[in-house]
């Protein structure tokens, strides 16, 4: 068993080493600037994610949504039994969460909306937003926050974002729409979808928990 394991790991290292030998140092290096200019944005990564390889991104968003639906489906029958410990109120954390939530929200919006110009985009923005919501839950107690924020309407908003994204992708892919506005909209939709998915998962994982 140990021998097999050592052989397997050695094999993996060998494959990767052969890969490195073949791929590195790379002789030809494509220049990403023309790609970015072709899509009338400055961030070449955004041009590839939301333009050149939009199909990949679209299906990736679908995988994300399906995974989140799977989590909901798996955890729907599980409820926390027994008495819950009371929420430990930490005034400092609560105050700082109140103060920080606004700036974090604005920052997430900025990261999403400027994704076509510089580093950023919908995925990190959604993750930042989800983390901010969790920070809030951490400070105020999961139950209070999810009572205010977790409604089925929020989940349908996630599916709506996906549908809108598909429509936008159709515009870009079929009609050949190439404007920065499409990038901003797509990034905002992705951010919304990732944030709601992350929040729903974290809510499910901690359902009926007093504290995180």
């Amino acid at each position: 068993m140990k021998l097999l394991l050592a052989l397997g790991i050695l094999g993996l290292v060998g494959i990767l080493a052969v890969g490195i030998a073949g791929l590195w140092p790379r002789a030809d290096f494509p220049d990403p600037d023309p790609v970015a200019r072709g899509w009338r944005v400055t961030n070449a990564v955004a041009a590839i994610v939301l333009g050149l390889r939009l199909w990949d991104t679209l299906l990736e968003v679908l995988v994300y949504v399906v995974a989140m639906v799977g989590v909901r489906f798996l955890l729907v029958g599980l409820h926390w039994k027994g008495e819950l410990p009371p929420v430990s109120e930490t005034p400092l954390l609560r105050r700082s969460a109140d103060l920080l939530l606004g700036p974090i929200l604005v920052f997430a919006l900025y990261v999403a909306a400027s994704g076509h110009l510089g580093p950023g985009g919908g995925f990190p923005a959604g993750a930042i937003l989800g983390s901010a919501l969790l920070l809030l839950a951490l400070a105020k107690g999961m139950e209070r926050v999810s009572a205010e924020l977790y409604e089925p309407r929020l989940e349908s908003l996630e599916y709506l974002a996906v549908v809108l994204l598909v429509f936008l992708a159709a515009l870009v892919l079929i009609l050949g729409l190439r404007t920065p506005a499409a990038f901003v909209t797509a990034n905002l939709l992705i951010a919304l979808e990732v944030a709601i998915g992350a929040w729903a998962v974290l809510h499910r994982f901690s359902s009926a928990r007093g504290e995180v």
Partner: protein
Amino acid sequence: MESLSALALAVASAALGMWAMVVRRNLVWKLLGLNVASGGGILFLVALSHRTGARPPIVGLGPGPAADALPQALVLTAIVIHFATLALALALVIVLTEHRHTQDSRKLEER
């Protein structure tokens, strides 16, 4: 030099993560190993996109040649998918623990 050290780390991380996935018996430890291994894979692609003195693939951001944007765009989605699949895997672990009262892979395989 920069990308060489990153490539070495990528290979080492992948091997380390695989080792943890095989040797550790607790399912959550296996997932942590998968986490490290996937980090190695992501780093491998990012290191391949780099060359000495390269600038980020953003138009007009400093002098020098730009790094390759394609691998970066690919791993961007890989990170997000990793989070989604990890959440799914952890949900499965939760369900398994509720029903079988153990996270030990060897005990789970017994019945």
